[in-house]
């Protein structure tokens, strides 16, 4: 809604998270968004609310308290068993009008990127996509939304002073979830779907689940990523062996993906996935900014490159100067013998 004065503004409070569901299950990105929402709400002295829409979700909704939610709105209906953007947007618009959240964040996933813009337009609000940082302006309490622009070469900070709620999407694995505290509890609010939400909608005819659409990083805490320096699919076999030895997952730069050595779903970076693992081992990746934005929040970055002067070798915690085809087999041997 357009806000004309500060009295209007003060009617809006609390930070909302739109839960992300896949195959009827709440996804970890929801916990990450709750983590970000918790620190925003603490600064604003307000509450964290989550909205869960689906079928057979009530049980799961309770788990969100542990991750920082104070209240969870549950909307359960047979019409929400598939993803119908039009119904979900219409419900959200009604809930926003009723409860007036100050901030609303959603996941920048296939579903979030379909749903949140529809909500933003219908409520006359701005929306900042793919934020990497969310903060509060200490002067006026506005949400400061930072995202990469121009291919990741600059970071732009955006605000929406005259509209409430302030809306943003965040990609998976960008924010950090809180350690779950299972002693926390909260309030469940039940809301219904109204017939008016379902006037103009699509009909879902068939649904297939397949995990080929995205790489499952699972719980891997070490990523072994290869770039142009890996030279071909055979090079990635060496990386897979390395990954198997440390219980890690394989990833790639765009140069490797564009060369057809590994599918796109393995790409990290601005136009690929984002990771925040314990360790990231970049093998033959020079570290252009578009790649860095996808992995620079990993705890320990290790680079293996022949060239000691690449950007990746500068930002790495550990930089190994050498030929990856010589060094990696030695690492595998060393690990295997220990």
């Amino acid at each position, binding site marked *: 809604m*357009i806000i004309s004065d500060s009295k209007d503004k003060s009617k809006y409070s609390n930070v909302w998270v739109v839960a992300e569901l896949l*195959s009827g299950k709440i996804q970890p990105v929801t916990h990450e968004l709750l983590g970000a929402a918790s620190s925003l709400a603490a600064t604003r002295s307000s509450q964290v609310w989550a909205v869960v829409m689906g079928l057979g979700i009530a049980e799961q909704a309770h788990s969100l308290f542990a991750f920082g939610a104070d209240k969870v709105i549950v909307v359960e209906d047979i019409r929400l068993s*598939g*993803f119908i953007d039009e119904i979900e*947007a219409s419900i959200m618009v009604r809930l926003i009008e009723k409860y007036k959240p100050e901030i609303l964040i959603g996941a920048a*996933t*296939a579903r979030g*990127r*379909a*749903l949140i*813009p529809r909500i*933003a*337009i219908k409520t*006359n*609000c*701005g*929306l900042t*996509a*793919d934020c990497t940082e969310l903060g509060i302006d200490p002067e006026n309490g506005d949400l400061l939304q930072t995202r*990469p622009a*121009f*291919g990741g*070469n*600059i*970071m*732009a*900070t*955006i*605000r*929406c*002073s005259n509209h409430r709620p302030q809306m943003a999407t965040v990609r998976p694995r960008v924010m950090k979830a809180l350690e779950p505290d299972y002693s926390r509890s909260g309030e469940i609010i039940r809301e219904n779907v109204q017939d008016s939400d379902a006037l103009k909608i*699509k009909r*879902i*005819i068939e*649904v*297939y*689940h*397949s995990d080929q*659409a*995205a790489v499952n990083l699972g719980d891997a805490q070490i990523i072994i990523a290869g770039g142009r320096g890996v030279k071909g699919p055979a090079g990635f076999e060496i990386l897979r062996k390395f990954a198997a030895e*440390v219980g890690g997952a394989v990833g790639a730069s765009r140069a490797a993906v564009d060369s057809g050595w590994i599918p796109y779903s393995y790409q990290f970076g601005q*136009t690929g996935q984002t990771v925040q693992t*314990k*360790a990231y081992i970049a093998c033959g990746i020079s570290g*252009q900014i578009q790649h860095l934005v996808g992995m*620079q929040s990993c705890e*320990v970055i*290790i680079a293996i490159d022949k060239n000691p002067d690449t950007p990746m*070798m500068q*930002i*790495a*915690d*550990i*930089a*190994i*100067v050498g030929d990856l085809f010589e*060094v990696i087999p030695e*690492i595998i*041997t*060393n690990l295997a013998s220990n």
Partner: protein
Amino acid sequence: MKIVVCIKQVPATSEAKIDPETKRIVREGLKAIMNPFDIYAVEEGIQLRDKFGGEVIVLSMGPEKALLSLREAISLGADRAILLSDKAFGGSDTWATSYTLAKAIDKIGDVDLVICGKQAIDGDTAQVGPGIAAHLDWVQATYVLRVEDADSKSIKVKRMHEDGYDICEMDFPAVVTVLKDINIPRVPTLKGCLAALKIEIPVWTHAHIGAEIEKIGLDGSPTRVVKTAPPPPRNIITKRIEGSPQDCANQLVREFRIRSIL
């Protein structure tokens, strides 16, 4: 089937070089191209028209030079083009852009289907397609990787999600946004190129489409960029390991243990 394909002209950022000193994009000599996803949107529009009849209208909001991208779409086989160009559109964010495009689609009239690219490579927002649908209050399907079927009243599409796909059916009018998997774009024909040279492309301003002045351009945009900065540096001390491959491996494995990575 009356189809509008929305195309955006964008800087060819994949060809961008970064100035090593300033760490900024070198903008000089950067070509303006049709947003790569939109080429697939144009192709899908043409294929649907060829199958079901009707026409393909390409629509773009942007400066005068966006005419080039519209002509490119004509060379591929689109029937006509409209440019939305007006000083008052300047500074539009995705809210104002989708409002302006929606008003133009309204003005074109009797449109069955709007096709957009999944996202534009300059902003990467993927908001304008659903934004148009929301402004018009039409149904939408995003991340479409195949049109399964269509008739004069409805369309059936396959959408991609992180956990798989679904197939859904929508009555017209509707908006879809397409992935690159959806088709293989054709190359322009000689006939198409001649048509592109000859065609008159009308330029519409906010007055032509009846857009309310407070909803367009910078004034109509809820978002404001308040600051731009280089990406934050990582504050670390790099430990450099050099020597024989065995030495490097030994030292690295020791680091794994010290830093409790393994």
